[in-house]
């Protein structure tokens, strides 16, 4: 089954928030951001801006009728700053004008005086200054302090992990319509309509039922619109409420880059203890998360970092500790992987260093420590059906890991100007929201009298294919053709209290809820059939290809007839059902529980070539064997794996988020923040799905697929390291990402820098021919 929206997309007919015909009187919002990263607001005067041409209103915090608060977990984030500002571009005022240009032009007339204070952008510095959010967290297994005694080899090191901008192609946007009474309707590009509804209601001081949030689709989200879509919707709602006119807010790319949060940068320390034979005995890591200026979702992100700190390796004695550090940057937020990638990178770095210390190939050390059934995760859950060894071994065989190794060694022996490297990246990713209460979903299914079906769930379509998955699940469950099923927009009046479309769990939760709703309708229809066809209790009714079967034998009842008869018999043809993932829990105090419904496994082989002269590189091939359970929709699942990989590769290499010491975003446009393009991706990219792998918890045995593939991208870092080491020999290079061409060149030739700058590089070689050097002054 193809993506339901695909044909519309290719014809440019798919409607995004600002594509609908503008309502009469539509105003456009423009947001005034702080010119400094940290400071005390002395004066904020918007009177001149109010006089500008086309300006209808300029609002500040004082105008907010409800609570000036948008923090999703902790109440530490104002919609509009008041006494102090904590990041550059933090919203201070908002202009509503007849056109976007008039609104933006009026921003210049806002008079703002801020006493600038020193900004902190480094998480370790923030920690040292006591700037932490919530409490530090820790997970332990065994007795790590005692275990160091029995280790043959102990390595220690540091990691410095960069952040990542989402670059959803559609920037943040929302439209708000004031309705009769105190009601308000919003269209928002949000992954979490309920979170947006909650934020808007809070800011306006209205009960939730007054606010309707509707989401047709997103032009990409990737976590960046999980909670951070809400403030922009709140600005639109605030303007609509106070001016009585509809309001649209569309961030320009530069504003979106400057004003919204990213993937969390991390700094980390690790210590790894190994036996001589290459067994992991003990592991300790400390994570300093750069949370930005407020909590946002940083605590659950940190939780997932700690949860995934062992990746897929068995570690008997472990202590991982982490802390959210408050810095003067935009509040960092959810991004595909949600902290997991950072935790997994650090253990991979530790194993890289450990393997070098043991003199053992890195992949041998990785392979021998893969988790098997019964092994413990840091949170005390036992792995029930580990596919770590299966995906590693089958992937290595399928893609011929040994040949890759030989090819790389042969190339390196023959070539001076280029070096190859390769790496295996196994992954294990836990599926469920780490906050147990979020693992619930609702679905509403209507069967109309012509046999067509309408489905609403809490899942938001952002390209990942939730609508298509839900349609497939409903069609299969009801025994009807997929074209009979329409998946509706996601709307808070049809589905209440929905969780965000996130945590790779959207199909798991909403698909299962839709399945339950279909079961309810089917039960009623089956009862009707039992009566009409005078069936006995042992006879089995089913619907297949819109035909009613009894004990597998065709009847003269079709789906259409069944629906018609049910209607006239006054059988309810609608159902609303609720799904809650069973048997998951987590105790934050003890750091133990069973937070995940199941785990996704897989392995990736990555091969790269580094241009030793220029420091540039090519990703030659990535080969992935991925555990999907039983694919629900191969085309959509494949797209998730490939797209996730692309983002992971980008995060590790060229996506270079740069902030100045003053908190200014230097990579402030797509001209300076580069994401993978068509030439960047490997020419040889192959994804296979693990065969004969079920998953009783997923709808039709499907496994979640959204986030896990991103972490295959980590392999490119270690493949590049392998290539660099082939040139420079074994040295302690930093575990710092992204591994840009700059870092690569400096790691290859940094020791020659002083000679190169002084012009003495290579001097020894041609000392004899230097007598005629002209003398020059610097240009």
């Amino acid at each position, binding site marked *: 089954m193809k993506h339901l929206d695909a044909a519309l997309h290719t014809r440019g007919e798919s409607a995004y928030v600002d594509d609908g015909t503008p309502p009469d009187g539509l105003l456009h919002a423009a947001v005034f951001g702080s010119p400094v990263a940290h400071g005390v607001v002395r004066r904020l005067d918007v009177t001149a801006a109010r006089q500008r041409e086309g300006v209808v209103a300029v609002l500040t915090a004082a105008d907010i009728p409800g609570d000036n608060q948008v923090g999703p977990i902790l109440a530490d984030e104002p919609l509009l700053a008041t006494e102090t500002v904590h990041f550059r571009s933090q919203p201070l005022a908002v202009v509503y004008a007849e056109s976007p240009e008039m609104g933006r032009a009026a921003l210049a007339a806002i008079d703002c005086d801020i006493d600038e204070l020193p900004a902190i952008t480094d998480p370790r510095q923030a920690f040292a200054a006591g700037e932490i959010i919530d409490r530090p967290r820790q997970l332990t297994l065994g007795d790590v302090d005692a275990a160091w005694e029995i280790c043959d080899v102990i390595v220690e090191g540091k990691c410095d992990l960069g952040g990542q901008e989402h670059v959803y192609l559609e920037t943040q946007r929302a439209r708000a319509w004031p309705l009769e009474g105190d009601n308000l309707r919003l269209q928002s590009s949000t992954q979490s309509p309920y979170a947006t509804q909650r934020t808007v209601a809070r800011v306006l001081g209205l009960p939730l039922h007054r606010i309707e949030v509707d989401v047709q689709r997103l032009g990409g989200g990737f976590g960046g619109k999980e909670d951070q879509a809400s403030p922009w919707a709140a600005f639109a709602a605030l303007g609509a409420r106070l001016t009585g006119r509809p309001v649209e807010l569309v961030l320009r790319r530069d504003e979106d880059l400057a004003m919204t949060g990213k993937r969390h940068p991390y700094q980390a320390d690790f210590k790894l203890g190994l036996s001589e034979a290459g067994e992991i005995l003990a592991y300790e890591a400390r994570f300093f998360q750069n949370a930005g200026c407020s909590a946002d979702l940083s605590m659950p992100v940190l939780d997932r970092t700690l949860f995934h700190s062992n990746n897929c390796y068995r570690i008997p004695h472990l202590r991982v500790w982490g802390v959210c550090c408050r810095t003067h940057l935009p509040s960092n937020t959810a991004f595909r992987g949600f902290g997991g990638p950072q935790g997994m990178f650090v253990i991979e770095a530790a194993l890289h260093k450990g393997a070098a210390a043991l003199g053992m190939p890195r992949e041998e050390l990785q392979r021998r420590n893969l988790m098997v059934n019964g092994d413990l995760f840091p949170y005390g859950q036992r792995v029930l059906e580990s596919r770590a060894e299966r995906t590693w071994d089958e992937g290595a065989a399928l893609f011929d890991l040994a040949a890759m190794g030989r090819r790389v060694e042969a190339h390196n022996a023959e070539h001076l100007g280029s070096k190859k490297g390769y790496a295996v990246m196994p992954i294990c990713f836990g599926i469920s929201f780490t906050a147990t209460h979020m693992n619930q979903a609702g679905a509403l299914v209507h069967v109309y009298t012509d046999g067509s079906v309408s489905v609403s769930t809490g899942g938001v379509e952002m390209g990942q294919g939730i609508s298509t998955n839900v349609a497939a699940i409903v069609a299969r469950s009801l025994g009807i053709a997929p074209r009979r099923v329409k998946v509706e927009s996601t709307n808070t009046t049809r589905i209440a209290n929905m969780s965000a479309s996130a945590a790779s769990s959207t199909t798991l939760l909403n698909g299962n809820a839709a399945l339950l709703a279909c079961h309810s309708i089917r039960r009623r229809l089956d009862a009707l059939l039992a009566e009409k066809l005078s069936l006995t209790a042992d006879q089995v009714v089913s619907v297949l290809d819109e035909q009613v079967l009894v004990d597998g034998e065709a009847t003269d009842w079709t789906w259409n007839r069944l629906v018609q008869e049910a209607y006239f018999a006054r059988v309810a043809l609608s159902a609303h059902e609720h799904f809650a993932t069973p048997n998951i829990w987590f105790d934050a105090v003890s750091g133990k529980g069973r937070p995940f419904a199941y785990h996704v496994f897989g392995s990736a082989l990555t091969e790269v070539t580094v241009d030793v002269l220029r420091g540039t590189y090519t990703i030659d091939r990535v080969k992935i064997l991925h555990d999907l359970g039983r694919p629900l929709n191969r085309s959509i699942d494949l797209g998730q794996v490939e797209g996730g990989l692309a983002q992971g590769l980008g995060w590790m290499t060229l996506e270079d988020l740069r902030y100045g010491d003053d908190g200014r975003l230097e990579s402030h446009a797509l001209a300076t923040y580069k994401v993978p393009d068509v030439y960047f991706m490997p020419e040889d990219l192959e994804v296979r799905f693990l065969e004969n792998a079920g998953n009783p918890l997923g709808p039709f045995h499907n496994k979640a697929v959204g986030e896990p593939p991103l972490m295959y991208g980590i392999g490119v870092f270690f493949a590049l390291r392998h290539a660099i080491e082939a040139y420079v020999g074994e040295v302690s290079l930093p575990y710092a990402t992204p591994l840009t061409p700059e870092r690569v*060149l400096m790691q290859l030739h940094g020791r020659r820098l002083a000679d*190169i*700058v002084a012009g003495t590089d290579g001097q020894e070689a041609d000392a004899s021919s230097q007598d005629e*050097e002209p003398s*020059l002054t610097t240009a």
Partner: protein
Amino acid sequence: MLSESSPTYCFLLNDRIVAAAAPSGQLVLDFLRRHRRQVGTKEGCKEGDCGACVVLVGELDDDRVRYQPITSCLMPVAELAGKHLVTIEGLRLASLTPIQQAIVDEGATQCGFCTPGIVISLTALLLQEPVDFDPASVRRALSGHLCRCTGYRSLLASGEVVRRRLEDAGVGHPWDLERLIDDGHLPAWLAEAPSLLRSIQSADGSPVGPTLEQDAVAGHPWRVAGGTDIYVQRGDDLARSAVEVLGRYPEMRGIHRADGHLRLGALTTFEELTHQPQVLELIPDMAQHMHWIASWQIRNRATLGGNVVNASPIGDMTILLLALEAELAIRRGEDMRQQALATFYKGYKELELEMDEVVTEICLPVRDPATKVHFEKVSKRKTLDIATVNSAMRLRLQDGLIAEVGLAAGGVAPVPLFLKNTAKALVGQAVEKATVHLACRLAQQEIAPISDVRGSADYKRMLVHQQLIAHFCQLLPQHFSVGDFL
């Protein structure tokens, strides 16, 4: 946004002739989305980096119309006069086109925001003669597009499906518009475009207008050539201003040989340059170098003159032209003067050019055929990225000695830098490693890079060193190999 004083531009929008009253500087993207409510064209970045806004622009060329994909976020409406603008709305045929169907079948669209632009760029391949859908061409079509969802493999696979279909049907060689229309690839009204455009041009009287000499272009604050940089830098100002579109001066286009020079009209686009036989005589590897410069969509607009006058210290084309020791033909009213490019830059974005002067031609000295040219560029991403450091070298040997050198580097000074001291010192040197080291040493004294978002000063210094080695290895492969310097 329409003001009473806005001029009116007559052009073909898909199958209809429109007369649009708009400020001349208004972006085609804004015009489409706001004034025509044609919202299939998307805004992703408004700086030509994402391709969500790509449209086709066709120009009459004798009896047919030549179409190119262009980023509508960097193109003023004034540029459309007498041309054909094709948007995604124009590709809504009774059923999906084979390109659209392939994207659906290959799962090559997820969130869909980038998809209309990509469909346009792939469709542009069908409008080139001959139609070429091989993987390299499909990549070129995708070069100006970002897709954050798919990872591109499925898009490439879609291109391959279309290639096979064209091959099986025997369409494309030779190019046959009727066949493409009959097979559902293109809308039928494309066949009418030449006559419709001719009717516009004769009714409108355009493009006849004041000549370059007569025009009040002198002193006009906004003169737009390709607009691919000025709209990035000053988009807000331009969109509400009157701009002077230089494209209407035919004497600023075209390529001819005269006085020992190859004279390139200042409006020669990068893409035109790539395929020009006379240019290829001077720079045989032009297409190879061009691969690292911008994207197909930007190269269709970016001009030589614009690149030179924009004075970016890191302009790719400027660096190449500097190494070739290009000269500029500059017009002021009826007066013409020549100016060496090497002395054109006085400081950061400061030019030897008066407000009432216009660069009309870039003149390349025609040199001994033994002269070789090489271009190097390192950027964070290899393609469609601004260089951290770029450089170009021109070299000719005679009797085993270096007889002639031109050398320029970008990203290492406030101006695109002609390394005259290094070049001068190399003349007469023997072809040996010590000469390479001499060049590296002298270049370090001429450059003064600063640290910025594209790289640290140290990195840039190192890149100049490495690129110089690369130039010698590429230009004199029988004498040097990279291994000699590692």
